[in-house]
């Protein structure tokens, strides 16, 4: 068996984990799972790539993409989420309204950037040039991606233990009770969408040296991010990291043992099996029932 699947799988898995974390940032305070998240990631990659093509340094491109996509997500909250959640907080109408928003982004981005993938260089001194270590072919960017993702997720988890982090959890638990304690759920939702969108853009730009920036990315990343979030337990970021790595490895393994066409099938089967055994994912909390 080819040992390359280990760095390749972990690097892809790190990206899936990042997308899943974007979902979680949004899901925790709002209980909305954003169907447009894949397209926000894709949009972030496109904006970052264009900014760098225009000569902006990597950091500036990253910041520009994060702010712009954050604003697009804020708009999503205003037109596609807040109105339907206000009408009935228990209905699932937001599934279709966020899906609708994703179709709009997808189509507009397709027209603005065209179908050709854009090559994006990693920030210096990192590079995608491969070298061999312990029998595995990898690159400095792959290693940075794997390590950087793990660090970023640990940092985010620390935030949830602070006072603001606990406010986020309180709103997720009981919106009305949080309101009585002086936490404004509407404001928190807006912030979550802005941050969740910004995080999606970061994930997109980090992904683009590996996957290329392309308008085709949206739906595929939505599915992979969901699979990582669901397997790791929705809302659990460390779970998402482990699940992302498992998925990345399973995908690489399925692709190398059978054929690349089986990548999606192997992760889908993994998802079905895990959800059958553990409906809340590997590291999910049992949800309190509302009787």
């Amino acid at each position, binding site marked *: 068996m080819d040992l390359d699947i280990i760095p390749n799988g972990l690097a892809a898995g790190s990206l899936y984990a990042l997308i899943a974390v974007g979902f979680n940032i949004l899901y925790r305070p709002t209980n909305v*799972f954003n*169907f447009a998240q894949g397209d926000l990631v894709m949009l972030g990659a496109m904006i970052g790539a264009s900014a760098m093509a225009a000569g902006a340094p990597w950091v500036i491109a990253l910041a520009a993409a994060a702010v712009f996509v954050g604003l697009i997500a804020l708009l999503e909250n205003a*037109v*596609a989420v807040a*109105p339907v959640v206000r009408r009935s907080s228990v209905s699932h109408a937001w599934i*279709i309204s966020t899906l609708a928003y994703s179709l709009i982004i*997808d*189509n507009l981005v397709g027209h603005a950037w065209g179908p050709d993938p854009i090559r994006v260089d990693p920030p210096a001194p990192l590079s995608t040039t491969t070298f061999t270590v312990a029998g595995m072919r990898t690159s400095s960017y792959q290693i940075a991606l794997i390590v950087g993702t793990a660090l970023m997720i640990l940092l985010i988890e620390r935030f949830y233990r602070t006072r603001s982090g606990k406010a986020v959890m309180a709103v997720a638990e009981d919106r009305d009770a949080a309101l009585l304690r002086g936490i404004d759920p509407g404001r928190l939702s807006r912030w979550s969408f802005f941050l969740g969108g910004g995080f999606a853009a970061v994930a997109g730009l980090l992904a683009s040296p590996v996957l290329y920036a392309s308008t085709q990315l949206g739906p595929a990343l939505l599915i992979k991010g969901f699979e990582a979030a669901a397997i790791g337990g929705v809302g659990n970021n460390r779970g998402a990291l482990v699940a992302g790595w498992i998925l990345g490895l399973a995908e690489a393994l399925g692709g190398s043992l059978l054929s690349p066409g089986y990548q999606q099938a192997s*992760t889908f089967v993994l998802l079905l099996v895990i959800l059958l055994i553990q409906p809340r994912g590997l590291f999910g909390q049992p949800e309190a*029932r509302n009787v």
Partner: protein
Amino acid sequence: MSDRTIPRGGAARVLDNPWLGRTAILVLAVAIYVFPLIAHSDYRLYLGTQVGIYLLVAMGLNLLSGYTGQPSLCHGALLAIGAYVTAIATVDHGWSFWPAALVGMAITAGAGALIALPAFRVSAWYFALITLAFAEVVGGMLIEWGGLTHSFSGVVGIPMPSAFGQSFNAAQLFWLVATIDIACFIMMANMMRGRFGRGFIALRDNEIAARASGISLVRLKMFAFVVSAAVTGLAGAFYAVQKTVITPDDFTADVSIFFLVVVVLGGSGRLWGAALGTVAFFVVPELLTSLQAWRLLIYGVVLLALMLFAPHGLAGAIASAWRSLRVALGASPRPPPPLATAPGAPTVQKVRGMAVSIAGLLKRFGGVTALDRVSLKVEAGSVHAIVGPNGSGKTTLLNMICGFFRPDEGSIRLDDVEVVGRSTAGIARLGVGRTFQTPKLLPELTATENAMLGAFAAERASTIEVALWAPRARREHAALAAQAEHFLGFVGLGERVHEQAGELPHGQQRLAEIARALIGRPRLLLLDEPAAGLSLTELDKLGALIRSIADLGVTVVIVEHHLELVADICRHVTVLDRGTVLAEGTPDAVFADPAVIAAYMGARPLAEAAS
């Protein structure tokens, strides 16, 4: 009747006449069958057949996403499975169309069952994403399994179905598809007015109400998935023969989204929704051609606008316009429902009450001990109150009796049956009825339909009998409607039986819940704070109602804060405080107990009064 009232009354009489609707449907059916004779163009006939095929998919999707509330993003992929199986069997293996279509239907239904497996225990949005992932996998496999599917070049030369040695022509194919559409529509309509319709809507709007009414979520959800997938698979078979060539490009992710837009546009969860949505799409064919590049944007904007401004789609808009028209013509907004046909009021027979015996019940939520080894006996046929301050574990206790929570330790015996570990639906079927602190009714259904939901487990007509509205299904439906009206009258809602449950005031919603529980003929009735927010007169009526329920022999366990009501109707009271039994006995003895007074009033005022 005076001359002046005749025109208005006359309008109402015409509008209320059930033959008006029947005539309209008959005219529609005749128009559909005559269409191939007057189409005068192969293209129009082709489009007509295509409408029929898409309608079949839309009806299948409406069942799953509209009625049952499980949004599917893989109906394009299910269509592909049905189409490919039929195409491969007829072209590569020389099968005749009919067995090929049946096998295609069966395999598609199997795929529906597969994706349904994890959906039983997760939310609707999980399901939507699982279907999206499934569609991606199917799309990949159509190319990957090239030996079977011919990969990108697709299956070519799919033959028309044939019968008696004659191959169908375009008009005959249209008639065949139209007939299947009409049959499917009628069966769907029958299912929806029977117990399945109520059950599906309960799955969508309130799973807790469904489980408390004895509905097995697993079986009903699986049923919805499999039927929806089978109908879509059948549509796939016709799709293949109509197109004669199918390639993976026919079944992209956009196709699944297209069908979702069709259903939401027409009216998701409305009987006519699928038909209205499909026809609307073909009335504006420009959308499909000249604006091709902006199709996704248009889908997105249409979906978003509908979700925001018209969540019930065209069917909802037409229904409300029709109601306004009726009012303008002097009729009531809705036609008066047909009178229940079962002769006389059903006789309500006495039941043998169920005894409850709870021993050492322990339940922890994280670090909080909600119930700390509670033991309790309720005599068969008695009215037993559980009182206590907020957070003392009363509702948790009810939730464990009816199986919503599983205790960490201890036993609950109903008569001699241990119920710990049984499902909520299973416990309900033993004869346990339940009402909730916040009423859990289905707001879009009438009070009568809500009450009928409570008899879900008691209905005997089979799926086929319901789908064909066979005599037994019809009789059962009529008898049940009469029973529902009777029980609604029994709880004091006789005047409001045909109102939508969501429009009833809160107090009356509680009463409707009691009627829903009673129609299941419970031997044990669990009432969770039925008196909260009632006026004094309503309170008296509730007391009388509970007494007459007890007179039927039913054991009643009531969680209540209103101590006068408790003292009035109960022989036994158990007081819970912070998860333990503080006192039990007759109301007089218990309410005089200083420990109870202290727990209820707070210790300090009592201590001050004593000093």
